[in-house]
């Protein structure tokens, strides 16, 4: 048993292009090993096969990049936050960049439990005609329902879209979408792309914000 009160640390980090094809479980393992290499006094889970206690807010789909991921992990005793940030950053691949770090009260709910929504920025190259994109997207959004088949089950994407905005620049069309990110309603921006005839492989989807319930 661990008699001492654990020290809960939260980092916000960016997942850059070089790691966009590394999935959620692999990222979790990557953090376990990176944390292990730091030599920090890591807290382990209880039970038969203890694991490093860490908690990622939300699975980022394969292929996405992000500037807003959040991870909690626990230490057995307090350590200077700047020191943690420095040693963890040194131990991580360069395509994970720690943005900031803070101490979190142990009583605060888990990241997954308090996550409500995600904001995504989808950058579509100008090889896709811009007027057509706007027309297509406006047509889609005005529909009552947007049924999509996810793992053989039909789900309605429409209520998962909380807000949106299209910006047209000479370099690209940029679609910003806020979608719900709860266990029951997890919006996937790439699923919308098929309705406006955009191949998700042609675009860059970046998660730019995670919105938590306070």
């Amino acid at each position, binding site marked *: 048993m661990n008699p001492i009160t654990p020290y809960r640390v939260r980092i916000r980090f960016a997942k850059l292009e070089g790691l966009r*094809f590394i999935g959620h479980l692999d990222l979790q*393992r990557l953090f376990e090993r990176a944390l292990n*290499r730091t030599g920090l006094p890591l807290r382990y889970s209880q039970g038969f096969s203890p694991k490093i206690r860490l908690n990622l807010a939300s699975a980022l789909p*394969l*292929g996405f990049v992000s500037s807003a991921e959040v991870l909690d992990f626990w230490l057995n005793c307090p350590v200077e936050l700047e020191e943690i940030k420095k040693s963890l950053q040194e131990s991580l*691949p360069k395509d994970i960049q720690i943005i900031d770090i803070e101490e979190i009260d142990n009583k605060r709910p888990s990241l997954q439990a308090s996550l409500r929504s995600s904001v995504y920025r989808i950058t579509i190259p100008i090889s896709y005609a811009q007027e057509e994109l706007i027309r297509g997207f406006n047509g889609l959004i005005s529909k009552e329902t947007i049924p999509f088949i996810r793992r053989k089950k039909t789900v309605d994407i429409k209520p998962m879209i909380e807000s949106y905005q299209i910006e047209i620049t000479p370099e690209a069309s940029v679609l910003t979408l806020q979608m719900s990110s709860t266990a029951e309603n997890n919006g996937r921006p790439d699923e919308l792309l098929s309705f406006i005839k955009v191949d998700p492989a042609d675009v860059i989807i970046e998660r730019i914000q995670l919105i938590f319930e306070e």
Partner: protein
Amino acid sequence: MTIIDKKVLDKILYHVEKPGRYVGGEHNMVLKAWDSCSTRVALAFPDLYDLGQANLGLAILYEIINDRPDILAERVFSPWHDMEDAMRERKIPLFALESKRPIIDFDILGITLPYESIYTNVLNLLDLAGMPLHASERDESYPLVIAGGQACFNPEPMTDFIDAFVIGDGEDVIFEIIETYQLWKKQNLDKLSLLLALAKIAGVYVPSLYDVTYFEDGTIKSVDPKNEGVPKQVHKRIAPQLPPPIKKQIVPNIQIVHDRIAVEIMRGCTRGCRFCHAGIVNRPVRQRKVADVLKAIDSGVKATGYEELSLLSLSSSDHTEILDMSKAVYDQNKGRRLSVSLPSLRIESFSVDLMDELKDLKPGGGFTIAPEAATDRMRAIINKPLDDKILFETVETIFNHGWLNLKMYYMIGLPDERMEDLEAILETAQKVLQIGRRLRGNRVRVHVSIGTFIPKPHTPFQWAISEDPVSIQEKIDFLRDGMRQAKIKLSYNRPDSTLLEAWLSRGDRRLGKVIEKAWQLGAKFDAWDEGFIKEYWYAAFQECGVDPHFYTNRERELDETFPWDHISAGVFKDFLLEDYQMSLRGETRQDCRDGCYACGILDCFAQVRPSNEDVYWGCP
């Protein structure tokens, strides 16, 4: 050519399964500036990243080459079917994980050949790289293609495609090859000059410099060098000391097999099991000192963050300091989250003690033993003696010390195998289960794993017949029914899938065209259970007019010249023959640490031994 267009690559990666296989970027990867190095080596393992990245030989070469400032090494693996299709469709050539440069831009392509069922993947790799398959069609503008690994002790089936083979330990010879290449490049000479220079390096075999002639019955008459200065026989290289352990093992971003730290504690084995290829070709024994093992563990954990470690050797129990090692490993790591596995333990209670010394560092899961045969008669034939009394005592100790799962490895298809040998496997397994149930109750599980014996070159069984798949299947059926009734889990390979290994492992040069044909017909990933399609191979044999049975269903004459006789593993053919004849008479040969049987290896390393006095060699 230049680096593969990232946009194009990313687009296809978005649609393939497990794209993490193709992106590199792992912790401890070495990416050197391309122009800072005069010689660039691509190291290929011709199977999926998920398998190949775990290969220790590849990791050693990667590190020692990259430790030199003027050379760089990058990695390449076989793309899975979906990735291959996408690459071919978009005309993306095979590229290296580090720089994303096409393989054809490298100076040397070094291919690992650990087993025979990987051969069609080699052809696919060369083709995806945009290189002619045949060594004879690649001029000096193409990378030099070399191969190394355990399968190269009979390189003949692959001689059409590979410029030069490394026989034996690659750690030292790789630099001699690179230096020879560098000198040749400066001189601006033709490819033949390079090949002739390479052939002068000890342990390097250049197949195009040899003529093979045959008798009418298809057996080999002779293999002769075509040029002066080319050796009649190529002797394997022996690294006098084990290379330093890997300092910075790559930590894959996706899950692979054997995803853990690997520390080689010993190379070679003195046991002399007659079926064992590794036991002969890796002679003599060289072991790592306990202090060095501890250093390797400590730096390995710090450099990787892994919580799992494996101490590798062919026979851990035979390390002369193994008990001290177990104790020291525990003392060093107690309090650390680390699971340490010690595979290949002998069947004796001492092995259980060794595991117990590791205390809470020992891995969860079962205990594994490898009796290989279940009757004294068969144990004498294969020279792996084991007293049933000791077997059952060991099993008792295993169960008494807390293990509930026991896995046992056996072989079938061994020379002169009889029904009684199979029945004995069944009876032994049943008895073991009974012991377990008596001691620990119904939670005990026994798992029997059956391997099909394939006669291998350079072993005493190189003269033996390889049993045909039909009768192997009958034997499997018999064991399956019996084990099912006894509630013992049985696993085995499809008998068909071992066919290929049987044809190729004792094959000759004439199989090159068969391999090529099979690949043209669609054969690849033959090592995968679902990958091997025997129809491609039968069609290829037929079209090439080669009889597959010639390689398997034939007992070789005692004086036959084998296709691999001009490759020496340091062991005399006479010694192997004598051992084969002893096997026919049911005679065993003890562990050779106690007395020398003059297998030949002593002479072979006599030159390097005096300068490496503090190394334990295993030979008296």
